[in-house]
C-alpha cells in the first residue's frame, strides 16, 4: 500500500498460494512482480519493508501534504537503496520464517483442538452424545445393570469412602525431594544419594557402607573415585541424610572400632521418637 497515512505507507503483506486468482486490487496497492533473474526471496522483501530503517527511508521519500494523504511514486520507490544480502542468506531467512509460521499455525490449531476436545468431553459426560443410542437400547442396558448389581452382591465388595490418591500424589512419592535437608545438593551429590538409597539395605547390599565400597560398586563417573565420594558423604552426613557411625570390628589385630555410614531409619528421627515416648506416657503404656 503506497498511499494513506504515514504508518501505512509502504506496509507490505505476503500473499499465499491459496489466494484467488481473480483478485482485484485498487491502484494504491501495488504488487511486486519478480523478474526472471530476481536474486532474492519474497519473504525477505516483506521483512525488509517491516524494518525500521526502511520504513524511515520510505517516510522520507513520501510526498503529499496532510497526515492522511502521503504518497510515493513508483519511480522513487525503484530508486530506493536497500540492504540486499546474497541469495543464499535470504533463502535461509525465508526457510526459518516459514518454519516459524508453521509453528504458529500449529499452536493456534492446538488451541482450537483443546477447546473442541473440552466441548466434546462435556457433551459425552452429560450424556448428550449418546442420548439417541441409549434410548434405542434402553431395555438391554437395564438388563445389564441388573446383572452387574447381582454379581457385585454375590462377591460382597465393600465400598470405602476414602479419598483416592490423585495421580500427582502417586507420582510425588517417586519424585526425589528437593526441600529442607535435601535442598542445595549439587548434581553429583544428589545422584550419589539416590544411588545409595537404591542400593543400600536391598537384597545385595548390607545396611552399612563406606566410600571405598561405593567407589568399587558404583557405575558411572564416580566409579573408583573414593576421595570424591568421601567428600560428598561428608556433606550428606552434615545434612543428616546419612549417619556416620563407628562399629566394632571382629578382627582382633586391627582397630577395635572403625568408621562407616548408614541411612537413617524411622526410629532415628529424634523428635518423632520423643513424641512417641510422650504418647506412651500419656496412655500409661510404659
Amino acid at each position, binding site marked *: 500500500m503506497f498511499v494513506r497515512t504515514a504508518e501505512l505507507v509502504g506496509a507490505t503483506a505476503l500473499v499465499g498460494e491459496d489466494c484467488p486468482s481473480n483478485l482485484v486490487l485498487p491502484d494504491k496497492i501495488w504488487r511486486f512482480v519478480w523478474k526472471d533473474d530476481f536474486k532474492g526471496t519474497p519473504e525477505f522483501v516483506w521483512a525488509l519493508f517491516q524494518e525500521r530503517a526502511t520504513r524511515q527511508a520510505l517516510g522520507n521519500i513520501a510526498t503529499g501534504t496532510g497526515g492522511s494523504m502521503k504518497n510515493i511514486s513508483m519511480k522513487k520507490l525503484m530508486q530506493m537503496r536497500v540492504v540486499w544480502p546474497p541469495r543464499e542468506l535470504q533463502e535461509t531467512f525465508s526457510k526459518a520464517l516459514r518454519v516459524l509460521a508453521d509453528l504458529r499455525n500449529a499452536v493456534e490449531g492446538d488451541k482450537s483442538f483443546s477447546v473442541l476436545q473440552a466441548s466434546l468431553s462435556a457433551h459425552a459426560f452429560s450424556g448428550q452424545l449418546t442420548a439417541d443410542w441409549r434410548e434405542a437400547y434402553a431395555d438391554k442396558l437395564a438388563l445389564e445393570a441388573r446383572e452387574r448389581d447381582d454379581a457385585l452382591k454375590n462377591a460382597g465388595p465393600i465400598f470405602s469412602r476414602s479419598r483416592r490418591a490423585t495421580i500427582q500424589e502417586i507420582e510425588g512419592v517417586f519424585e526425589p525431594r528437593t526441600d529442607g535437608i535435601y535442598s542445595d545438593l549439587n548434581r553429583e551429590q544428589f545422584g550419589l544419594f539416590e544411588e545409595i538409597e537404591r542400593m543400600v539395605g536391598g537384597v545385595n547390599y548390607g545396611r552399612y557402607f563406606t566410600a571405598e565400597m561405593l567407589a568399587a560398586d558404583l557405575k558411572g563417573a564416580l566409579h573408583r573415585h573414593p576421595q570424591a565420594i568421601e567428600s560428598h558423604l561428608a556433606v550428606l552426613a*552434615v*545434612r543428616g541424610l546419612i549417619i556416620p557411625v563407628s562399629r566394632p570390628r571382629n578382627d582382633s589385630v586391627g582397630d577395635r572400632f572403625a568408621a562407616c555410614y548408614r541411612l537413617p531409619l524411622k526410629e532415628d*528421627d529424634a*523428635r518423632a521418637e*520423643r513424641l512417641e515416648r510422650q504418647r506412651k506416657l500419656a496412655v500409661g503404656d510404659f
Partner: protein
Amino acid sequence: MRLRYIYLPDYGPLKKVAVVFQQNPHIENRAGAVNFVVGLNGSGKSSLLRAIYDVFHSLSLEKLPRFPVTLAYDIKVDKRWDELDERWRGLSRDEIEKVNDTKFVQRTVIFHRPAGPASDCFLVPAADCLPFSKADEWQEYVEHALAPKGNADSLGYYVAGDRLKGDGNLRNWLPSRVLAYTSGDLKPWQNLTYPSYPTDELNDDPQEFDRELERPAGWRPEQEYFDRRVTRPDVSADVPPRGENEPPVDERCLLLRPEDTRLAAISVGIWQAAHELESRSESWQRDAFRKERINEIDKKIQVEEPARRLLNELNWLWPTHAAFHFADYGQYQRHPDAGRCFWLLALADKVVRYPLDEALAVVRLGNCPPVRPSELVGEMPLESQAELNLRYTANPMTNAHCGAEAIRSLFGGEADPDETLWSLFSALRSWQSFGLLKDVNLTVQRVHQLPNAEGEMDDQLLSYGSFSDGEQMLLGRMALLLLLRKQENSLLLLDEPETHFNDAWKRQIIDLVDDCILKDTSTQVLVSTHTSLALTDVFSCEITRLVKERGVTKAQPVLHPTFGADPGRILLHVFGAPDIIGARAAEFLRSKLDPAKWPPKDREKLRLLIDEIGSGWPRAKLMEILEQLEETQRGDMPNAPYDS
C-alpha cells in the same frame, strides 16, 4: 578502650619494663586503636600480652593480680551512666547531646599494684583523658599524685586493693570484653588464668577434710556438670540460670581455644548469610548476588565490607545448612539455656539421632516461608513446665524469612543485627563448654562452579571441615575481629595471629583489623608479630620493640618510619636482621662482588649469573663489574665492531 601504659617491675622474663602505647595522629576517624609488640623469639612478647590479660582477668574476678603492675587505659563512658559527673545524671541521651555534642566521654583509668600489701593497691578513673606520652610522666603521676593515701578523698571514685570484693561499680571501669588468642601453646595461658584457692578459705579443719570433693587439677564447673550427669544421674546437676543481660564474669575475659576459632568462623558464616539472604528471597536475586561475587573475585575487586572480603578470599558464596551436633539430646532441658535449645531443635528441618544419645539438628539456612514459632512447636513435644511456658513467650524468630535470620534472631534477640554476632558465638561456646553441644558444622556453597567427575559444570558444595587448614584458620582468626564489632570498650590480644598464613594474607591482616573494628568500635587490638610485611601498614609509634640485652628484656621505641616502608627496611630496622636478603644468598653474592675475581674471559659467565639474580643492590654492583669488563675488552680491540 585504649591501652596507654603498662609497667611491669617483675613478670617472667620482663623486669622493669615500661611500655607506652601510642597512636599516630595522622590516622583520623578511628574509634579503636591497634598496637604491635615485636621482638625476637624469647624476648617476652607473649609474656607482655599474658600480663595484660592476667590483670584484667584477676580484676574481673574481683581479685588482685599475683604480680606487681601499673596499668593505664582509657575507657569510653556513656554520659548517662557516668557516675563521676553529676551534670548528666538523670538526663536522657538526647538531652545530653543538646548540652554537649558528644554522648560519650573518655576517661583514663589507672590500676596500680605495687609490691606491698593489698591495701596499697588501687583502681582510679581520672576526671578525663590524661595527656601523658612518656613512661616517666605516667610513673610520676601514679606515685606522687595518686598513690599517697591522703589524695584518695579528692578522687571521685577510688577502689582500694583490699576492698575489691563486692564492689559493684568495679566492672564499669574494666574493659567490657577481653579476648585472647594465641596461635602457639595455650598451656602457659591456662595456667595463669586458673584461680588459686583463696588463702582465707583454706582451713585445716579435720571435719572438712573430704577427699570425695577433690577433682583433678584444672577442673572446670562445666566438667563437673557433665561428669555428674554421666556418673551420678540421680544427683541433680542443674546449672542455675543466669540473668538475661548480665554476661557471666568468666565471659568477660575469654581465652580462646583452638575450637573457638572454628565456632567463631561458623558464627560469622551464619551471621553473614542472615545478612545477605534476608533481603534476597527470590532466586533471581540470589543469582545476581552470585554473579556479583564472581565478578569481584575474577577481577580482584577489593570489597569494602570486611566479612564479605574475607569470604570472597575463600570463594565462599553462602552456607546452605547448619548442623548442630548435640552431645546429650535427652538431657538438654537441664541446661541453663534450654529455652533457646528448644527453639533451635524446633526450627531444625530434621533432628537425626546418633548413637549414645547424641543428635544432629540440621537447619536449612536459605529462604523459607516466614517462621511461625507456634507452628514449629507442633513438631516438638513439650516435656517440662519450663517448655510449656516457652510456648507462650513472644519469640524473636517470628517472621524470619530465612533459616540464618531465624538463628541470628534466636541468639541475638531484638538487638541491632550488627551486634548479634557476639551473642551467637558466646551462646554456642557456652553450649560447647557445658558438653551440650559437641560441634557445629556447615555445608557451604562456593562461588564458582567446577567440572564434576563427568566433566560437566556443577556447584561446589562442601562441608566446612573440607576447607583447607589455611582457609579455616584465616576465617577463624579473622572472625575473632568481627566478633568484637560494636563491642565497645573491648580488648583483643592476638599472639602471632599470622602464623600459617601466606604473605598476601599476612599483608591483609592490618587492613582487616582496621575495617572490621577500628573504624567504628572503641576497641584496643594488641598484636604480637614476627611479620615485617604486616608492619608496613603501621606507624612506628604504634610498635613496641622488646629487645633482650644480657638476658634482660627492655622495651624500645621504633625510630625508623615503618608506615608504607619497604618490608626489607623493616626487617633491618625493626627486627634487627643483618641483611635484607637471606644469609645463603648474602654469603654467595658477597664473594662475587670483588671485581678482581672476574677476569675478562669470564664475561659471559658473569652475564649468565646476573640473569639469575633478583633486583637489588648486589645485582646492580655485578652489572657495574660487567660493564667495566666490557669496556676493558673494547679498549683491547679498538678495531672490533661494537659488541652489543
